[in-house]
Every structure is written in C-alpha cells, then in structure tokens.
C-alpha cells in the first residue's frame, strides 16, 4: 500500500526560474513527513513535484529523479496521469466539485475516469472513504446535497475523503489546515494520525506546533534571498529537529528568531 519515496538531486523550475535546487531526501513509508520553512522557500513547489502536479503550471519542469519504490516518476516512459493516480493530493483551499453531490465528490476519482462499478461497490467505497476522513457521521443523511453546502472544515475533509477513495500509495497535503479553524484543524490532525497506518504522508505546514504534533520526520527548507532558489537545509526525526537541530538556521526558524 504505502511506498518509500527517494528524491535525488531534484531541481525545480518555473520557466527559466530555478525555484528549488538540489534536493536529496528519503520519505519513509507509513510515516508522516512535514515540510516547514518560510514563505516562498519552495515547500509547496517541492511537494507538487512529487506527484507531477508541478508541471500542470505552464512552463514548469524539473530535472533529477523522484523514485517511488525504485520507479522514476520522471522517466520518459512514465505517464503523469498514472503517477497522480498513485499519489493523491489535498490542497490548501478546500476545492470540492461544485456541480457534484457529496456522494459523487467522494467517488469523483472513479466517475471522472469513467470507471464503472456497481451501486453496492460505490456505496461501500463512499462510506469507507468518508469514515476514513471522519466525515461519515456528519453527512450520511445528506449525501445527495451539494459538496459546497458543507462548512470549510467539512469541505476539506471531503477533499481528503475524495483523495483516499481512490486508494493511493501516497497522500500529499499542501497546508491542509491553513484555511480552517482550530477545531477542524484538530479533526484533520487526528485523521492524519490514523491515515499514516496505511499511507505515506507528506504535509506542508506553516504551523510549527502542527509539524511537531503530527509528523515523524521534518524537513526544513530555506531560501537565501529573493530570486534565489530554495534548498533543503536539514531533515531529521521531528523530535531531533525541534530539540537539537544541527544547523543554526533551523534553530533560528523553529525558535521564531527568524525574519
């Protein structure tokens, strides 16, 4: 189910602009890896390059390797659509499909790909995904109403349900709680703890407490200055990172003594 991700010398570009430079890292299976760092340091850009969402932006490309269980995502023979089927993503802002019901939103990954399944299988998948996202009890009586009728926190959990309904190997989250209130944030953090039993999870966050609470390993990105590429400064077990970081910049950032 879950897979190890190895990143070798990854450079990420927007057209001529080098946004992230020379990343080497390993993301362990069945664990939560947090990506922290100041704004503009390339955390989101990096996480989007792990499932080839980066190249959905015009002119964007990468060099280097991302190996998922030894298979290079950026090999010429790899189809980005297949990659995204294996590696799901949850975005910063909840984005349920407004034309679809809650039910259809959850199985959108199947519906949009026109994969047929009978009603019983679909019902089962919807219930399983919604329960996995801690949303089942709140919406089980109104599965036919529109996805945009839910609150922001519920919408975000709906998006998580949608991402896990297709049973990906890896789940990437790009600041999933930054638009949510503390209670919804807590619900999603609990959910992340449950999900890591089955999935490899990568999460970008601006919230250091959140990184400390949910993650097993933490990667710190930094940027030398405006217009310079972001770099991976340090990556270690979360406890070590937050108690005895090896690099001074990491210490400055997590203790708040930083720009």
């Amino acid at each position, binding site marked *: 189910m879950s897979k190890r991700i190895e990143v070798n010398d990854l450079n990420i570009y927007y057209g001529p602009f080098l946004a992230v430079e020379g990343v080497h890292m390993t993301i362990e299976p069945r664990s939560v890896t947090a990506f922290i760092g100041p704004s503009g340091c390339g955390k989101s850009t990096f996480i989007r390059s792990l499932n080839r969402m980066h190249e*959905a932006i015009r002119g964007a490309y990468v060099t280097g390797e991302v190996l998922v269980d030894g298979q290079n995502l950026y090999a010429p023979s790899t189809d980005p659509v297949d990659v995204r089927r294996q590696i799901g993503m949850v975005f910063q802002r909840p*984005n349920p*499909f407004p034309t679809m019901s809650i039910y259809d939103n959850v199985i959108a990954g199947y519906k*949009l790909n026109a994969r047929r399944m009978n009603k019983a299988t679909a019902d089962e998948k919807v219930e399983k995904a919604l329960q996995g996202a801690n949303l089942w009890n709140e919406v089980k009586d109104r599965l036919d*109403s529109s996805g945009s009728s839910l609150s922001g926190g519920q919408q975000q959990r709906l998006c998580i349900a949608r991402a896990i309904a*297709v049973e990906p190997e890896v789940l990437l989250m790009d600041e999933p709680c930054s638009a949510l209130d503390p209670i919804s944030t807590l619900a999603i953090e609990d959910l992340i703890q449950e999900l890591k039993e089955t999935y490899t999870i990568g999460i970008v966050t601006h919230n250091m407490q959140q990184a400390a609470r949910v993650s097993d390993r933490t990667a710190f990105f930094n940027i030398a200055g405006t217009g310079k590429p972001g770099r991976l400064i340090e990556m270690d077990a979360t406890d070590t990172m937050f108690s005895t970081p090896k690099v001074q910049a990491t210490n400055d950032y997590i203790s708040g003594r930083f720009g």
Partner: protein
Amino acid sequence: MSTTPGTPPTPTTDRSGKTGTTSESPHGQSAPVRPGSSLGLTPEQFGTPGTPGTPGPPGPGDPVAAEPTPTAGRLPQALSPGLLLASAAAVAGLLLLLGRFTVVGTVVLTAVVYTVGIYVVARVVEGHRRAVDRVVTALVTVAFVLAMAPLVSLIWTVATRGLARFDVAFFTQSMAGVVGEGGGAAHAIIGTLQVTGIATLISVPVGIMASVWLVEYGKGPLKRGITFLVDVMTGIPSIVAGLFAFALFSLLLGDPGHRSGIAGAIALSVLMTPVVVRTCEEMLKLVPDELREASFALGVPRWRTITKVVLPTSIGGIAAGVTIAIARVIGETAPLLITLGFTTGFNFDMTEGRASTLPVFAFDQFRNRGLPPEAFIDRAWTAALSLIIIVMVLNGIGRLIAYLYAPKTNR
C-alpha cells in the same frame, strides 16, 4: 471645565492634563455638550436644523461649517418623490400655459428641474456631500430611464400593432397566392427556425471547442492571433458575412444566382461563431484553477477534466452565451436577403432554392406593399412581434438551462 462651545473637544489631552487638580465633572468626559458633535444634536433637530434658538451649532446653511458635521439635517423621506411630482406638475403646467405640451418634453424638463431642485434643497439642508450624492443618484436614475424608455416604447409599439394579425392564419398559412388581406408567415417562421438552427448547429460546437482551446491549450502568438481575429470578426458588418457566403457558394457551385438555406446558415454562423467563442471563453476563464488541479490530482486526464469538470461547471454561462449569440443573428436581414432571397410559399429544402425568413418577410411586406397597404403593414408588424417572442422564448430556455445545470450552492 475649560471646554468652551465652539472649540473642538479633545477630551483625552484635556483630562490627562487635569487629572487630580480640578474637580472632574460628575458626568465624566462626555458631560459637556459639544456643539455640532454627534452627541450634541438631539433627535428633534433632525429635519429642522438651523432652528433659531439652537445654541451654538454651526448653521447647516453655512457651507463651510455644514460640511464636516456628521449630523447635519436629513431631508424627510417623502421629500424626494414629492419634489419629483411637484417639478413634473410645474413643468407640465408651464408647458400647457405656453401651449407647447409634449410628453417627451415634460419628462426631460422634469428630470432637469428635479435634479437642480434636489441639489439646491439638499445643499441647504444636508450639506455638500449628501447633495452630491442625491444629484448623482438622480443622474443615474435618469440614465436608467433613458436606457429603458426606447425598449419599453419599442415593445409596446410592436405588441400593439402586431396584435392586429396575431391570429391562427398568420401562423399556419404562407403567402402563396395571397395578394391582399389574409395570408401568413408560417413559411418565414419555418425558414427562420431552419436557418438559425443550422447556423447554431455549426457555430456552437465550433465556438465552444475554439474557446476551450483558447483557455485550456492555446499559448503564444497563435493564441494571441486567434483572439485578435475573433475580436475582429465580432465586429464585421453582417452584409459582409452575407456576401462572403453568397460568393463562396456561387464560386463553388458555379452558379452566380445561387440561393439556399445552407448559404444563409453559413452567413449567420460566420456572425455567430465569434460571439460564441468570446462569451464561452469568458465563462471558462471563470472556472477556478483549483477545480482543474483537484481533478488532475485524482489522476484524471486533461480532456476528461475539461468535459467532466470545466464544461459542467460553466454550463450556465455557456447556455447564456449561446442564447445571446442566437439572438444576435436571428434578426439578421441583409445577409439572408442576399443568400436566401424570399418566396411566397413553403420551401423546406435547405439545400436548394429561395426561402423566406421572418426579418426578410417583414422587410418585404413593408417594402413591397400591395393593396390594401394596411394588410401588408400589419403582417410586417406581426412578423416583428413573432421574432421578439421567439427571442424571448430562447432567452427563457437559456435561463432554464443555466438554472438547471448551474452549480448548486444550497446557501
């Protein structure tokens, strides 16, 4: 207390400087009646500011002092409509006295008199800012009435005159063999529906696909070039489209007198396609990129994202755009006169021969009047009325589609 009437009160500095030295007023800092401030004016002064005997407050009629006071008087609510009626009555009376009364003249002069009047009254009572607000409100309202007046007048005229022949015969008979009264425009209605329908069948797929290309795929000089050409095509005169279609068919078929419904439909679709492209492009741009990304992230290929997410999300706007495009061409006369001509009888064959359409029918009835001329004029009006009704029905269908398929928010 050192606060004297007329000086702007500054309680904080005033109090801090005096703490403990002199006795505070028992009411605290809000005690002194500050003339002209929001606490100083009592409600009964609303509407009658400047009453002699009110101590201190700057007279609202005094422009310098009235401007910054937040509680300068307000005009009573009934004053504005009252003033409007009064100016209308005054203008009408004056014009009647001069013996030059006309409805249009009365309306225009009333608007002028009311605007000037409301400004003067508001300037005196309410001060500069509110007076400007009222004048601008009056001007905007006048502009709205000016924009609506021709429309209402047009619909009223067409409806009243068109009703004379709004009967069963008009919608069931053609003009074949009719020389005077009677007859109908059934052949022209069929022709209009056929020609516009074929033009729509050509333009809507081409237009929607072109706009999808522009929004989802196109880039660089090719995209800019196509956008420019679409903009240019939106503005080409309809007669040019007619001549183009006529020349195209004449040259291709080697028949210098070629007339057919297809040629007419081609002419209309030349006019229609750019409108569809432009409106659909705007609608597709409104679909948030987040939805496209959500779909990509689920491993959905781009073409399925477009057909299953982007187009359904914008279907309401697209339907509205298509309706506008149809309304734009359904009343075209010149290109159809060239490519289609007109006949008196039915011609269901779109590939060959002349056929009638409603706008050309109305033009022909008006232009080539026989005896009695009233019968021809009446038929022309009824044809115009039918055309307006068809456009209205299409509009309703467009709105219905937009309503049925628009994203449901439940809020």
